């Protein structure tokens, strides 16, 4: 579904992403982990078309990506951002937020689609005419996911979708993403610094450090500690150490 080969992104003199390659099958979830500044979000932004300055090859569903993307691309590939406080228009109601992608892509049955979209992310229909500041963080992230799903995409690019949320809300959103993937056969690329979240949702994981993808491994290998690169091992060790409560 997604093929990335020798992708490089430069910002001025710094090379933020250095020749990164990976591929994602249809209906699969691929995770990218790394520390701040490792280039993981930059990969996602290049994929989504938010950054036109890249070199290398990217294909989505067999179509080579160019710096300028078609309208159909922007329907089929949608992105969900970290901060639901910043990614929703503060002066638009949920109804307006959800109807915009439908109008842009000339889709019909707007009314029914919005109601269905809200129920799919388990939001009551009463939020339809509210503004985003009247909703909780978890509800806002659900609206952002509903909005991404409105145009019936094939691919969802998720940039730290739960790191601004409380742990109990994180569990709900992760379960929701799991259900939606099954129901729609979606392909996910998930970026996060939280190894446990990535390993929960994704079967295969790429580890980035300093702009390079230093290791590609399965979630099971990561859990079992079958790592090749020292950076992966260090990230795993820290994550395991901190996730268990201190024992007496």
């Amino acid at each position: 579904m997604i093929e990335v080969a020798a992708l490089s992104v430069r910002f001025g003199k710094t090379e933020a992403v250095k020749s990164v390659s990976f591929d994602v099958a249809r209906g699969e979830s691929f995770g990218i982990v790394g520390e701040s500044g490792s280039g993981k979000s930059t990969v996602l932004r290049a994929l989504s078309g938010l950054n036109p300055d890249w070199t290398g090859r990217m294909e989505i569903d067999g179509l080579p990506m160019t710096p300028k993307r078609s309208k159909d691309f922007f329907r089929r590939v949608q992105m969900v951002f970290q901060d639901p406080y910043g990614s929703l228009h503060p002066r638009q109601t949920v109804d307006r937020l959800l109807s915009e992608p439908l109008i842009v892509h000339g889709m019909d049955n707007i009314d029914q689609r919005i109601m269905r979209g809200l129920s799919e992310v388990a939001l009551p229909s009463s939020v339809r005419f509210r503004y985003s500041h009247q909703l909780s963080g978890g509800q806002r992230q659900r609206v952002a996911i509903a909005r991404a799903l409105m145009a019936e995409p094939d691919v969802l690019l998720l940039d730290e979708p739960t790191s601004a949320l409380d742990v109990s809300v994180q569990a709900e959103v992760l379960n929701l993403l799991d259900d939606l993937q099954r129901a729609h056969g979606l392909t996910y690329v998930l970026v996060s610094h939280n190894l446990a979240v990535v390993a929960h949702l994704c079967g295969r994981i790429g580890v980035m450090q300093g702009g390079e993808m230093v290791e590609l491994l399965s979630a099971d290998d990561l859990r079992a500690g079958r790592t090749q690169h020292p950076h992966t091992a260090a990230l795993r060790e820290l994550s395991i150490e901190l996730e268990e409560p201190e024992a007496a």
Partner: protein
Amino acid sequence: MLVEIRNLRIQFPTATGLSEAVRNVSLTLGQEKLGIVGESGSGKSLTARSILRLLPSNAVLTADKLTFDDIDVLHANETALRRIRGARAGLILQDPKFSLNPVMTAGAQIAEAWRIHRGGGRKLAMQAAIDLLAQVQIRDPVHVAKAYPHELSGGMGQRVMIAMMLAPDPELLIADEPTSALDATVQAEILRLIEDLVSRRGMGLILISHDLPLVSHFCDRVAVMYAGRVVEELAASDLLHAQHPYTRGLLDCLPTLSHKKTRLTVMQRDPSWLT
């Protein structure tokens, strides 16, 4: 005894009457590390900030007792509070991007804090600032002292914040989600640094966070808050034997790396937790 809170209540006026944000919280803190854990809106930040009486102006604050080293914070005037805030109790906030002054160098900000609380000349204060930057394990303190906040990474910015709070040599450090804007590696480094400084200087620490397992690694005692109440208070080492279903729920809903969960447990909130 450093801090004593008995029956703390914080209310906010709303269109339909007073809304209770913190309800009958009692805590004591000596020279130890206390974690306050809870979700957004549980009242954990308000509780900690009430020790400095740093609350929104419309907040209604009542308590049977609210003292900092036997000073009655509840009835203290601004001058008395000024001698506590910053000087004897420092506050580290979540995001250094917003809490540092963007048009002052890191060194100048730390030196300012030093001079306000300890007096002394500019040169002396700048030298102290560089020394403090070295204490928070910044490798090139002279260089960082000359840098502006936007030139620093998140982890560096938070170290500068900590250095600034240490300048007046406080007895209590309140860290309000000090690492939630940072990635896992830097988060662990910063928390280890705070823990180390607190132990070495013999300070008290209140660490506010929503990450229960994480807090248990860096605190002696954990208070779990839900809807404005402390529902459970226990030693960090007893966390695995937590009794309250909310505490258990917070632990169970986390995805883990050590073993696979096909589906995450979702918290079932019981209305009886509110009473």
